[in-house]
């Protein structure tokens, strides 16, 4: 293993003795819980939420273990440990999810306590990656790097991680509860489709405050979050969240699993009434007990100090030269780089969407390669994006040609981040017990249809999102093109929507027309893209074109003018 000196490492929250002690106790607790299940002291009904709250699912063919990657940040040592677990206990690969987590899909129950112990050795676990509790908090994959960032959301994501860990009051909620936080004007964390979405903002004198949205979510009843508060001061953040959660825990529906998310409560009582209830609750609990001490914030913030950036010119001659000399490299730099706040650096998206590949899958060998590249080029730190890609957040522009060549050796150089080949997909019927239809093979088909990278670049940014059932793990409602698999009398069919987005202009997609069969989906996608290319104005995005000309021309293109 490579151990970086702390001077060369990116700011990451490192566990202290108390965190480690907690995790060791939790692993032992789970060992005893497994034993109590085996002895019959716990029924299966009782054991199920316990194993779920440790990330262990029973899927179609095997157990699945979902490992928490808090707000998508990993050290290279952690990624290497995941690679080893994938090789030792799974089939040599893992699957990165839209929740910035990692899933192993072929786990044996008997191995689980050992895997949890291996994870604990690198400060990792599966806690609260499932169950009716506050789930792993997610954020912008470019946090602490993006040029447009106002407040570093990792600081607050870590505070929320700690606050929500084994929360005594909120571990048996009506339903799961997902919180996302962004600190940029451009929302890359999809906060509008979370139970609570938080936008960190900067106020007078540099004070940090939060705009809070509530009741977003996809699934069978998709809703965009409603604004609950314009400005919650930093000190009140936890008190406010306590108030929201307490109202939800008491008044959220428990009679119907499909109506139990907070979005239904918001919908039924109305945002204004809910705001009144939350404000009453907050007024009651306001006080020193729930006040977030600025000293704590500073302590956590120090963990995320910027790494030791070199002073570099804003433009790298080496990068420009390599671009000019190699069109394939130049193409990759157009799609897979994000502007960095530090002159001479860039944030790199490593696409896990090679042509014909399974979105989000990475082999153990690839994980080890990325870990080594992170050590060499990005301060030993890796991010997981909710688009199911990996990110090296702090790469010197001078190093980009060498990094790209290395990535190519491991099949990780797909030049399609944010393009039509960068498909978000849930695991679907190939793994998931809930799915009605396949999604992975379909994503592979579509990806092959658009194998021509020049075509992808000509099309430009376009997000295809696909779910194999109405639970919408693939976020189909908020894709430029959304694909939802449904079971129609035993036949897999697919409903296609267009015009959705999860950014700051969040919108839900509109249905194009009648659902189509498995074999027709790639044709439909191709037709939708073709119409966009025919009709788009200069510099117009897919969403803008849909907004300008409406759904009808797309429908006619797909189903014929008679439609």
């Amino acid at each position, binding site marked *: 293993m490579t151990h970086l000196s702390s001077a060369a490492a990116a700011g990451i929250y490192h566990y202290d003795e108390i965190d480690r002690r907690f995790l060791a106790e*939790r692993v032992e607790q789970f060992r005893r819980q497994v034993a*109590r299940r085996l002895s019959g002291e716990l029924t299966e009904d009782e054991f199920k939420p316990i194993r779920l709250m440790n990330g262990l699912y029973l899927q179609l063919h095997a157990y699945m273990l979902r490992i928490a990657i808090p707000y998508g940040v990993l050290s290279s040592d952690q990624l290497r440990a995941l690679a080893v677990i994938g090789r030792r206990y799974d089939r040599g690969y893992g699957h990165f999810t839209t929740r910035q987590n990692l899933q192993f899909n072929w786990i044996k129950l008997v191995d689980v306590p050992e895997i949890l112990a291996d994870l604990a050795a690198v400060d990792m676990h599966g806690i609260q990656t499932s169950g009716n509790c506050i789930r792993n908090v997610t954020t912008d994959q470019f946090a602490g790097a993006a040029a447009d960032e106002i407040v570093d959301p990792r600081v607050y994501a870590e505070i929320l991680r700690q606050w929500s860990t084994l929360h*005594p*009051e909120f571990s048996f909620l009506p339903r799961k509860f997902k919180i996302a936080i962004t600190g940029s004007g451009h929302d890359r964390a999809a906060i509008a489709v979370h139970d609570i979405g938080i936008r960190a903002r900067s106020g007078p004198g540099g004070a940090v405050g939060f705009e809070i949205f509530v009741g977003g979510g996809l699934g069978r009843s998709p809703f965009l979050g409603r604004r609950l508060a314009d400005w919650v001061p930093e000190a009140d953040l936890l008190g406010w969240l306590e108030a929201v959660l*307490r109202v939800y825990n*008491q008044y959220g529906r428990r009679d119907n699993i499909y109506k139990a998310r907070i979005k239904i409560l918001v919908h039924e009582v109305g945002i204004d009434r809910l705001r009144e209830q939350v404000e009453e609750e907050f007024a009651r609990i306001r006080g020193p007990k729930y006040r977030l001490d600025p000293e704590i914030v500073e302590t956590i913030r120090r963990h995320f100090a910027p790494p030791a950036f070199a002073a570099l010119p804003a433009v790298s001659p080496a990068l420009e030269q390599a671009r000019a000399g190699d069109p394939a490299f130049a193409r990759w730099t157009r799609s897979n780089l994000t502007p960095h706040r530090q002159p001479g650096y860039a944030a790199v998206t490593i696409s896990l969407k090679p042509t014909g590949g399974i979105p989000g899958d990475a082999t153990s060998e690839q994980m080890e390669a990325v870990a080594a590249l992170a050590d060499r080029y990005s301060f030993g730190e890796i991010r997981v994006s909710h688009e199911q890609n990996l990110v090296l957040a702090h790469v010197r522009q001078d190093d980009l040609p060498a990094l790209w060549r290395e990535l190519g050796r491991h099949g990780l150089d797909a030049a399609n981040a944010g393009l039509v080949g960068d498909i978000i997909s849930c695991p679907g019927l190939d793994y998931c017990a809930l799915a009605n239809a396949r999604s992975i093979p379909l994503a592979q088909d579509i990806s092959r249809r658009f194998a021509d990278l020049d075509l992808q670049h000509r099309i430009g940014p376009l997000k295809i999102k696909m779910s194999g059932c109405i639970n919408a793990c693939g976020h189909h409602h908020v894709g430029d093109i959304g694909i939802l698999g449904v079971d129609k009398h035993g036949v897999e069919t697919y409903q296609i929507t267009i015009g959705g987005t999860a950014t700051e202009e969040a919108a839900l997609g509109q249905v194009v027309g009648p659902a189509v069969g498995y074999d027709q989906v790639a044709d439909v996608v191709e037709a939708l893209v073709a119409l966009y290319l025919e009709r788009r104005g200069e510099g117009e995005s897919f969403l803008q074109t849909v907004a300008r000309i409406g759904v009808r021309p797309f429908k006619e293109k797909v189903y014929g003018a008679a439609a």
Partner: protein
Amino acid sequence: MALLLKDGQPVGDSWTHLDDAAGAVPEGPVIVSLDRWRRDRAALITRNTPVGVRLKSNQLAPEIAADLARFALVALEFPRFRDGRAFSTARELREHHGYTGEIRAFGHILPDQYQFLVRTGFTTVELPDGAGLASWRHALAEIDVAYQAGVAGDAPLSLLRRKLATGPK
């Protein structure tokens, strides 16, 4: 009779759960449903013996706020262990209404929830029939780190995380 647990140890129970259907009120402290309390309030008050009220999980703290001073005990039901409303009810009673009497959990509860009960303000637990006493006794010692403020004896959030004082082990 169900075993009563306090601070991880079995203790004697002087309280009797009274059915709504039961006619005469027996001697000694009784726990009545909220319905019965509302029906027989005057008679129960004049008995001059401690009275407790039990709430179903959908009966929340505001329902008893006005009468809280009259109750020496509030028993909160868990119809299923996954119904976590009573955690909030207990906390509301303690933190908002300043209730200092006994708060008791009963119904379908697991040892894995004992720590949460204590940290949201419960005093005692009526163990479900057939409960594994060893697991309950062990439960408070399993995890002694807490990352957020709780009710009992917890200092303000001066540090986001700290070791829990779990008492004798």
